[in-house]
């Protein structure tokens, strides 16, 4: 699937159509996600109605059958039974048909809403990334966020729809019964409330309690397994693999013991459900018999009165399973909303100055400039430098000082303090996207998308031709490698660029910076992990392509820095 090729222009600043998913919108997370389904509200409503009709059909099937049989036992002329017979058959067919329609309509609506939700989350992430992402910068958490968004499908299909259908069927059955024998109707209402609220609440509490106890043990088990698998070679070499396995075995039995203790209340919930249903049936027998004896109820209706509770309980039978899903998606919704509500640490200035087009060439001037992941939490002492087109400047410091953060700051992707100008343009006055039109950043951990080499490079400039891209890659020492690939630059790099080696990945990312035509290029450790020969090729290519551009090199390598026109030491702000 081409990720980058198929994109279309979208007006910048287009408002998200889902107000409940704007940062800081009121309401609980689940409620906000549910309200985000408003565009498909009619479809979801229809699905709920169809679901209610499906269950309603089985209640009606048993009710009309009971009436038919009772009536038939009085041996009336067969003509009097025709209506009941037709109804029985219709309800017999209706259930399957309505259920089918419900599932089709419901899934369609849920998928539509999921797309909206994805885009809302993406839009927000696009604004706050990377500084607002916080912990989500790590791959595992990002994976979870994506899974969380996917799990909202269950919120619609397995929580909202079953509850809505149960409500409709429950109310309908209670009303039907109450008009015939009021007391039996009340008993049914009580049973449905127990089955639909009390039992699920018990189940929910059990699930939460188990989760609270199980989650740490499960987390430990996962961590120990990851360590075992990642470190297996070394653990085996050290003769420690069996010990590591025994550790996991202990965690596993602990996990089993913890979950075992919580199972008791699950059984109580199930038992309570059976008692509620049975109670409603027995109540219907007692009150129905009284009504028949007293003459308030025609005896022919008694079977109906007794059998409706038996069938109606089906409406709430799936709800305990729904609340387990609910417990899961509620957490997922909370995490989604936490990401949406994360503060934007790099808001555009107000008012935003437009960027002149074209940007007149000038000097890149940085004064008293520092950056950090949070405003005020600066990673380094302020730096100042100026650099004219065709010149290069090196920001030098040992690893761990936060040079990369300064690079992100220069591209307006993390909070900054100080001045940054290009020629006559004060970059502090223009919007973030415009800053990045002037200042191109090649990150050290740049992401390769799961598409072709060419598309990954072309990301930097849509108009780059295949020939241009091939030239740039050859400049970076990848010419032979690309030529050796059966599909050349049309070769896919795999998910996260896993199909290519680390060094190749790095240079494909650098190729983007060379293809882009922004007047200022920041290269963050472009030669880290490369052997001397390839390092030289990369540096030569950077210099050649920056003949008329400003090159800012971020490096810990003194020798490389010394070859720049000037060097700027970066000192840690934390002493």
């Amino acid at each position, binding site marked *: *699937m081409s990720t*980058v090729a198929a994109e279309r222009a979208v007006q910048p600043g287009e408002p998200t159509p889902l107000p409940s998913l704007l940062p800081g919108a009121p309401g609980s997370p689940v409620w906000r996600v549910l309200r985000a389904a408003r565009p498909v509200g009619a479809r979801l409503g229809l699905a709920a109605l169809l679901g209610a009709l499906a269950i309603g059909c089985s209640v009606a099937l048993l009710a009309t059958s009971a009436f038919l049989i009772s009536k038939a*036992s009085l041996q009336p002329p067969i003509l009097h039974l025709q209506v009941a017979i037709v109804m*029985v058959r219709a309800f017999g067919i209706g259930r399957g048909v309505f259920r089918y329609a419900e599932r089709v309509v419901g899934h369609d609506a849920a998928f539509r809403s999921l797309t909206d939700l994805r885009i809302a989350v993406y839009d927000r992430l696009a604004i706050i990334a990377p500084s607002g992402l916080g912990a989500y910068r790590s791959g595992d958490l990002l994976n979870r966020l994506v899974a969380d968004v996917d799990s909202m499908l269950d919120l619609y299909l397995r929580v909202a729809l079953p509850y809505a259908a149960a409500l409709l069927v429950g109310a309908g059955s209670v009303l039907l019964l109450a008009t015939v024998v009021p007391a039996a109707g009340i008993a049914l209402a009580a049973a449905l409330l127990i089955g639909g609220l009390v039992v699920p609440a018990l189940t929910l509490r059990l699930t939460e309690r188990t989760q609270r106890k199980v989650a740490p043990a499960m987390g430990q088990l996962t961590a120990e397994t990851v360590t075992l698998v990642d470190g297996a070679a070394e*653990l085996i070499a050290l003769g420690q693999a069996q010990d590591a396995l025994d550790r996991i075995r202990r965690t596993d039995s602990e996990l*089993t013991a913890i979950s075992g203790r919580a199972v008791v209340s699950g059984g109580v919930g199930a038992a309570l459900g059976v008692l509620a249903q049975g109670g409603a049936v027995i109540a219907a027998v007692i009150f129905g018999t009284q009504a028949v004896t007293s003459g308030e109820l025609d005896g022919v209706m008694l079977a109906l009165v007794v059998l409706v509770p038996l069938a109606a309980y089906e409406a709430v039978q799936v709800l305990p399973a729904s609340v387990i899903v609910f417990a899961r998606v509620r957490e997922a919704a909370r995490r989604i909303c936490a990401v949406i509500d994360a503060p934007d640490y790099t808001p555009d200035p107000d008012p935003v100055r437009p960027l002149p087009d074209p940007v007149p060439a000038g000097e890149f001037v940085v004064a008293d400039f520092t950056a950090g992941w949070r405003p005020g939490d600066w990673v380094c002492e302020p730096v100042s430098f100026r650099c004219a087109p065709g010149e290069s400047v090196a920001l030098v410091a040992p690893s*761990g000082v936060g040079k990369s953060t300064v690079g992100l700051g220069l591209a307006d*992707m993390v909070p900054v303090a100080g001045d940054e100008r290009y020629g006559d343009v004060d970059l502090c006055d223009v919007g973030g996207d415009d800053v990045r039109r002037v200042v191109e950043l090649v990150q050290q951990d740049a992401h390769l998308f799961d598409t072709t080499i060419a598309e990954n490079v072309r990301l930097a400039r849509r108009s780059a031709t295949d020939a241009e891209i091939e030239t740039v890659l050859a400049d970076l020492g990848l010419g032979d490698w690309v030529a050796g690939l059966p599909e050349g630059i049309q070769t896919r790099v795999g998910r996260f660029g896993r199909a290519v080696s680390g060094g190749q990945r790095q240079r494909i990312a650098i190729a983007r910076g060379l293809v882009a035509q922004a007047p200022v290029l920041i290269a963050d450790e472009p030669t880290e992990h490369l052997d001397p020969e390839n390092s030289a090729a990369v540096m030569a290519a950077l210099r050649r392509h920056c003949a008329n551009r400003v090159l800012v090199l971020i490096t810990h390598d003194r020798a490389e820095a010394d070859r720049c026109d000037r060097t700027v030491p970066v000192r840690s702000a934390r002493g």
Partner: protein
Amino acid sequence: MKPLDPRLMRWARATRVFLITTILAGVITTAAIIVQAMLLATVITQVFQDHASLEQIWPQVMWLAGVVVVRALLAYVVEWSAFHSSARAKSQLRMAVLDHVVALGPEYLDSRRSGELAQLTGRGIDALDSYFARYLPQLVLAVMVPVAIIAVVITEDLLAAVIIALTIPLIPIFMILVGLYTRRQVDRQWRTLGILSGHFLDVVAGLPTLKAFGRARAQAQTLRDIGDRYRRTTMGVLRVSFLSALVLELLATLSVAIVAVSIGLRLVNGTLDLYTGLFVLILAPEAYLPLRMVGAQFHASADGIAAAEQLLDILDTPVPAHDALTEIPAKDAPFSVTLSAVSVVYPDRPVPALADVTFRAAPGRVTALAGHSGAGKSTALRVILGFVAPEPGTVRLQGAAGDDWTPATATRDSWLEQIGWLPQDPVMLAGSVADNILLGRPSAGIADVRIAARRAGLDPETLSQIVGEGGSGVSAGQRRRIGLARVLLRDAPVVLLDEPSAALDEETESLVVQAVAGLRDKGRTVVVVAHRRALLDMADEVIHLAAPDPDDLTAPAEQSVSLPGLGR
């Protein structure tokens, strides 16, 4: 995905007591439901036809209450035994897989991702809960319950029994037919769902990059286009695959309707009495219920079955035979390491990782492996460890007494005991820094740990610092120093160091160089993978490994041997 995987059934055996309990509870529940139907039919008939009063039917009402209580108890028992049946089977499967994975060794694990395996053996196995606890017993009940109900109905109303007996088999038949028709498409569709989330993940993970190049906002429309396209194709498949549920629901409810109408018509004719009619009507839906639940529970177990299939595939991977029985005698004697014409070709890579490499690393000397990234330096170490079998070529350990071992003649444990290895990313277990260093030689005393730590450039103050599982709380540089300390503590005759000075500053690097020199002075055989000058300069011998030319797979590795440097 098979309804009944015989491989998975093996694991159900461990838990058969609980499975049988669940099934037994299900059978007794069915009996209770039959009694309940009799009681309800009796009560209704007596009140409606015989005008009985509440007092007259009171005994039946009490019985009814008793039946409900029994059913409630059974529901509790089912939950209880369901938990135990799944817990035991899951636990056994989990540990069997991990045991097997370790037995398969690094050769196998290199090709797997740890997160995936942890997910499979953790939450993945958890998804098997409903398979063992509910699906398997339900499968048995789905056969037993309809048979029991038909048997009871036959005694009362032959025609209704025939209708039920004819329609019930239709349900699995139609479901299999629809399932066969849709399975391939559904499988494909789930893969598409994977691709879709994969795409979303790809775009979100790459957001900083997209943003740097001003392309972040444009991707929103791509997400919508792909989402819409996915929804349309998915709905196309779902519309067909939902048909199997439609068939099931339709047959189950329509059959009840047919039974009801036939009863009604025969009541009018007077060929059937009211009691029988009501009894059969109440019981008929119960005959179809277990089958409907099988479908639902199979669906609920789908995730678990998918996970289980991957786990069972792991279990079916044969363990490479290590049939050597001779142990290298445990004595602190020097060994030289010799690689003779070693080539290594990984099955999934077209280019050999090592091509025709020959060298000898002698005791008391430092042999450095140099070369481009991808030239096979780490692979060479893994060959020495015996984790990668060369094809062709041999690796041998030769002692001073003329003893000569290969991975084929020595047991793996005794082979590995001769070797200390610092991998690029040393493993960190939860515990203190000292605990982690002790992994090198668990029997060592704290004094030895301190010495090793100091020589590896670790501040002895940090020995009590707590390391989180997987190394959280310690920096990459610190991890390498802990790994080095571990190797120093192990003090094995052969020492393999994979880029020991990477990610270290110059000051620490000089400590590493000193540590390596110390190993040489002790007469250890040191093989070190090195990029940086400091280590290459101090090596007695530098082996240059060249990445094999993809066009000429037989080209021998370029090798040059430099003379030992004089300055130490």
